């Protein structure tokens, strides 16, 4: 009977899977950058010529039309990761604790005159539960999800990477549109009465260029994060048969800690 306790605690730990899934579910930056992509027109509008404004408005409509889809792709990946985390969750440890309790309770009751057939029923039940736990129902569920989900998940992450790249390129053109006019008009404004305007323009230019410089880093971090999620899930997929192996566990722990670092770096410098 007391062997049961030992049995229950030898189950495979999915802690690293859970940590990786939790860190992946945060997917830092993508949502915010999607949002920024959608808002491009509002930011660049004051700098546009009438002809450019016409084109910009058409593009604005396109960007707004697909924004919901960007968000929903992200939501799908986040939900998948949150579910994977739950599936790899510590509900199993709750079970083990209850098994322990069961053993103790049984002992107490065996002394208090419980009929033999009741004891037999308890014993049978405990054995079965132990078997259920040892058979790794949760482990198998994690396996199924990761195995069946990997290909499509990789496609989604790949799509998000492409989108993030398109966001970054759009942002680059926005930056050059906003700053471009000053590159030319500041040197043209050499008259004494232009001095105040030129000063204001230079201050504005400095603040805008530093805003865009910080953003460049965020596009970069968002892409790094997506790549880590993709690589981590691939690694998990390749090692499903041996999730308790030291190598896969430390690899997943590394992916999770890299993702947390990326996430922290993003939170350091909000827009």
């Amino acid at each position, binding site marked *: 009977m007391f062997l049961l306790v030992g049995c229950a605690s030898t189950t495979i730990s999915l802690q690293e899977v859970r940590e990786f899934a939790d860190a992946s579910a945060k997917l830092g930056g993508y949502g915010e950058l999607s949002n920024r992509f959608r808002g491009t027109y509002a930011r660049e509008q004051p700098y546009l010529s009438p002809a450019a404004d016409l084109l910009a408005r058409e593009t604005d409509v396109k960007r707004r039309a697909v924004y919901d889809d960007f968000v929903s792709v992200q939501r799908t990946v986040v939900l998948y990761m949150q579910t994977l985390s*739950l599936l790899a969750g510590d509900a199993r440890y*709750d079970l083990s604790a209850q*098994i322990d309790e069961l053993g103790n*309770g049984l002992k107490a009751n065996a002394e*208090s005159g419980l009929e033999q057939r009741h004891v037999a029923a308890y014993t049978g039940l405990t054995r079965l*539960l132990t078997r259920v736990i040892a058979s790794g129902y949760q482990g198998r569920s994690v396996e199924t999800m990761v195995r069946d989900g990997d290909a499509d998940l990789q496609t989604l992450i790949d799509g998000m990477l*492409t989108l993030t790249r398109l966001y970054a390129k759009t942002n680059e*053109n926005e930056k050059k549109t906003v700053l471009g006019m000053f590159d030319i008009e500041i040197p043209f404004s050499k008259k004494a009465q232009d001095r105040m305007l030129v000063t204001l323009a230079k201050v504005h230019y400095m603040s805008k260029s530093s805003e865009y410089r910080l953003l460049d880093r965020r596009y970069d971090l968002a892409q790094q994060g997506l790549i880590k999620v993709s690589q981590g899930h691939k690694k998990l997929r390749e090692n499903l048969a041996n999730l308790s192996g030291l190598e896969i566990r430390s690899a997943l722990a590394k992916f999770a800690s890299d993702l947390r670092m990326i996430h922290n770096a993003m939170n350091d410098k909000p827009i």
Partner: protein
Amino acid sequence: MQAQQQGLSNVAQVEALADQLSACADAIHARVMKDIARHGDAPMSDKEQALARALLEDEMLLRQRANGLYADAASIVVKALNRPQQHVMELTAAAAEKIRKIALLGDVTGLVAGLLLLGGAAATGQVAPILLALKKISDQLKAVELHRAKPAG
């Protein structure tokens, strides 16, 4: 998959075209900046200034064209993601169902805990509630066995 790849190759083409337009805009800008730098502190004539502004306008239009194409590419990307997204959602729903079942296993042990309390009552001769609880447990066990027979997925 075919349609998906088709979509993705379109993305690459549209994006490449937009990249070229952006590069042209960069080249125009560089050219104007070079003209300005060559003048140094000497003022530019009105005609030269007008030319520089006209080029800046062209640059701006090219950037708008490029950004329009980037938006087109983004639309193609998300359209190609429809199917895989659907599949991942289904898998997630299936996994959520499994989590529910695992919670059910938890319920079984919960019942056992209740039963143990009743076991205390049994010591005082109240066997009937125990038998009732045992019946409940055996029902739960059948459910558990059912899940074991059809292992995850």
